[in-house]
């Protein structure tokens, strides 16, 4: 089993979700995160006090899939999250040791 972690622009979440649903992915976990890479921050000025805001809001999507699905899922995420501008995000693939369904106790591929 593999876990796919994707950091994407927040407004792209719906597009990514639709694209994954189309290929049969029926669940995911998302979190609101902040970060920066090559996309620079911005300036805010409050009554003359200037602040540079480095961290930009992003969405992190986490999905656990069977190893065979990884390439297809990564491709779909990259397509759907793409805008061509700086800050589109990154996708990481990690190994998952175990998975258990809480309700039934199923393990492994039956659990994801």
């Amino acid at each position: 089993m593999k876990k796919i972690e994707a950091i994407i622009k927040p407004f792209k979440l719906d597009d990514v979700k639709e694209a994954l649903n189309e290929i049969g992915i029926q669940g995911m976990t998302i979190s609101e995160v902040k970060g920066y890479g090559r996309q620079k921050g911005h300036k805010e000025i409050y009554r003359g006090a200037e602040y540079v805001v480095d961290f930009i809001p992003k969405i992190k999507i986490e999905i656990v899939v069977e190893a065979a699905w990884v390439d297809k899922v990564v491709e779909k995420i990259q397509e759907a999250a793409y805008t061509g501008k700086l800050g589109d995000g990154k996708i990481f693939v990690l190994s998952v040791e175990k998975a258990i369904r809480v309700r039934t106790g199923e393990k492994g591929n039956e659990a994801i």
Partner: protein
Amino acid sequence: MKCKLILLTAVLTVLPFSSAFAEDVLNSGDTAWIIVSTALVMMMTPAGLALFYGGMSRYKNLLNTFAMTFMSYCLGSIVWVLWGYTLAFGPDVGELIGGLEHLFLDGITVDSLTGTIPTTVFVVFQMTFAAITVALVLGSIVDRMKFSSWIVFVVLWLTFVYSPVCHWVWGGGWMHAMGALDFAGGNVVHINAGVAGLVLSAMVGKRLGYGKEAMFPSSITLTALGAAMLWFGWFGFNAGSALAADGVAASAFLVTNTSAAMGAIAWMAAEWYVNKRPTVLGIASGVVAGLVSITPAAGFVDMKAALVIGLVAGGFGFYSVAVLKRKLGYDDSLDAFGVHGMCGIWGALATGVFANPAITGGAAGLLYGNPRQVWIQFVSIVATALFSALATFIVVLVTRVVTGGLRVDEDDEVKGLDGAIHGERGFEIEF
């Protein structure tokens, strides 16, 4: 003969209602208006100012700002009716202070009148001014002052700084005798509070990380809402200061709105030009700048003057806060001096220029053949500023001794006063 008798009767019936007898008779229109004005001004402190200041405070100190504002009003309510009123408005002693005849409001009955309104109404109306003046001062020291120190400061400041200045200008003291014009509190409220804030912020010291760390306002939404409530309440502040429901009150009402609107537009324009963005914080600040500067002038100037007063206030306020403050390096956190002090000074001087005797008889400024008024205003501004600075300095020293230091611990300042002092959070946001 019959005609003459009817005429005489008619005249004798009407006479009590003419202005010759107005001083001694309760006027229900005036009374109703001043009671309403009092309620409007009351709302300016725990609602308007609390939101305005609270929204500009950092989130971790939002409630503390509210607490200090609320307490300013509550303590002001009590101090005023115990000894504040009599010190400000009691029988004059040497043109410097009021006598103690009305300690605990003794001698004031249900039937006592001040002009055409019950004295009790006048007492409460003036009380709301005292309370908001001291509340304004807290804008300079948010995020770092001990709550106990603030409480002691409020009681001492109202007694030894606010009441004397109030007496000088409105209670029959020397500034009034000199002919200084201050319709609703340019000197008594804004310059007084602004200078006090500057002194207090210097003595408490800058916030940790000031100039280096980002200090984001908790909610511009709350600040804008607060500014709108202040605008609404200010109609009571300025038009109510006519102490009558009449043409002068109406005129004050008009110029107050005009100046506020111009102040907002001017600040927004200045900010848009300099920083390339019009901010809501700027618009809200411009509103207050316009309101502050029209305060001393409200019952003395006409609408055209108000356009100018508001315009300059917006621009000057922006300059004070965005440029001057950084150059001079002080941490007057929410610009009590930058907006209230500086725009109050502009308003007081503008009163000396634009006072139009057609609005209030006997009050004429430079443009109406009385250049001396500008000098009188200048003297009153300087005297208020010097007294406020010195007296506040002493009050702060005493406060520091009585409460064992003015400032919270470093750890508490970093953690945030809402948690450290009050054990509360401003908003319950899940997760």
